[in-house]
């Protein structure tokens, strides 16, 4: 793991969060009002609990709230008045998100940076500092090590990476921004034993995720996989809800709506899902993605073919939320593996 290694004792986490919260808005793992772990705004630094497994909570809220009002308007006898809603100001820190989640957030910025007009709404993700937390063990559906490497993801996306070892965390400082963050933690230089212990954790996660399930970007053209029966089979199971897309840290589709209430209203942005049946419905009632198989294919190809072609990275970092939370158990990893296997069988070759 690159970066200068420091060590932070376990009982200093709260004070570090407190120090960060002094100058930034911090989000960290806490027990939510429902009793479930979630990633939320830190109001009380001592409520942040790194031992919580918040890996099935949404983290998209950190940079794109489900609903975000862009402006309000009022109508009266004088006409219309617009009232801008101020963008959140100040620096933000995502504290304790995992390498897969961090990498997913960073990769989304490719989409918002392309073209002549970078979209400031999407670049919130870029401006957010990430203090990542390496996983000691995977959840059942985690597959980060099968679409890449959690070590690479941490280096790609984190400003600082925390790795849990006995007594606390080893901090690897990856960026200058990370250096400032670590500077208020009170962490001291890590000993070589501590660095080795962290290294063992890094390697341990990779071994804990079975190697035989490795997949990657689909090295094919869209046309070559378009008619794959895998999409039809899995599409027949898919119920077209938004769980996979809404919980995915790399998904970013949104809708912009104007809604009226009484003599005023608001324009807002809210999450949208390519899995909803009306996502590509035209005003003419024609729907180019006319069945769930087509919509499922779109999600898979977007993450494993189009994004790699455009940006050189998969739009999936193996966090496993979709596979665990899908009401009917569709696993994107399995779909990609099946597509490759089907192509191999068809062509008598191994798909790279």
């Amino acid at each position, binding site marked *: 793991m690159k970066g200068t290694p420091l060590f932070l004792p376990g009982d200093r986490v709260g004070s570090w969060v407190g120090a960060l919260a002094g100058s930034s808005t911090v989000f960290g793992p806490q027990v939510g009002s429902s009793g479930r772990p979630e990633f939320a705004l830190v109001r009380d630094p001592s409520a942040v609990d790194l031992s919580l497994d918040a890996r099935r909570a949404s983290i998209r809220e950190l940079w794109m709230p489900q609903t975000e009002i862009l402006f309000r308007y009022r109508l009266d006898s004088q006409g219309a008045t617009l009232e801008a809603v101020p963008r959140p100001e100040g620096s933000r820190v995502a504290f304790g998100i995992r390498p897969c989640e961090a990498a997913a957030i960073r990769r989304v910025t490719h989409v918002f940076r392309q073209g002549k007009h970078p979209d400031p709404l999407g670049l919130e993700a870029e401006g957010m500092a990430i203090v990542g937390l390496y996983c000691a063990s995977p959840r059942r559906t985690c597959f980060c090590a099968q679409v890449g490497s959690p070590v690479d993801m941490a280096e790609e996306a984190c400003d600082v990476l925390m790795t849990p070892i006995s007594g606390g965390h080893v901090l690897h400082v990856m960026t200058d921004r990370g250096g400032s963050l670590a500077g208020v933690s009170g962490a001291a230089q890590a000993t070589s034993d501590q660095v080795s212990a962290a290294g063992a954790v890094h390697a341990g996660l990779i071994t804990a995720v079975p190697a035989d399930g490795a997949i990657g970007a689909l090295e094919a053209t869209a046309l070559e996989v378009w008619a794959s029966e895998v999409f039809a089979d899995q599409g027949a199971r898919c119920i077209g809800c938004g769980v996979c897309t809404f919980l995915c840290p790399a998904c970013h589709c949104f809708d912009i709506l104007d809604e009226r*209430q009484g003599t005023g209203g608001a324009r807002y942005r809210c999450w949208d899902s390519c899995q909803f049946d009306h996502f590509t419905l035209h005003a003419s009632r024609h729907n180019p993605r006319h069945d769930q198989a087509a919509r499922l294919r779109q999600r898979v190809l977007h993450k494993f073919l189009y994004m790699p072609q455009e940006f050189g990275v998969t739009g999936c970092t193996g966090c496993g939320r979709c596979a665990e939370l899908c009401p009917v158990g569709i696993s994107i990893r399995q779909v990609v593996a099946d597509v490759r296997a089907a192509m191999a069988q068809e062509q008598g070759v191994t798909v790279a």
Partner: protein
Amino acid sequence: MTVEAVQAQHEDKRPKIVAFLCNWCSYAGADLAGSGRMDYPANLRVIRVPCSGRVDPLFVLKALEQGADAVLVSGCHPGDCHYAKGNYYARRRLTALLELLEFTGVPPHKYRFEWVSASEGKEFAQVIREMVEALNAAEQKAAMAHV
């Protein structure tokens, strides 16, 4: 003046009661209250429907979501429906809706379902008086809680 400007003039008048009144009985009853110059609070926003059977529970819940302080649904007495059966269907829907509203803790002063006939102008005025009284009392109680 635009519709919006007219609306804006009445925007601040609270509490606002949205009332779904069936054309043949309740709307006529409300009209009778008016033509009889019966005094009742001017907080009503009437939506005339052909029959209480036209009222979808969605309308009631939507009106509350849109900021109505209370919703009234009123139709002909069972047995007297202009379309013979419409209010019987309404009765099933509304009694079920009452249970849902109560179960989910929606304060009772925010909804009322009634049967008011075309000749019951006095009763109609009384229903509105009672609703506004209850709304004002609830508002006062909430204000006191902040003291």
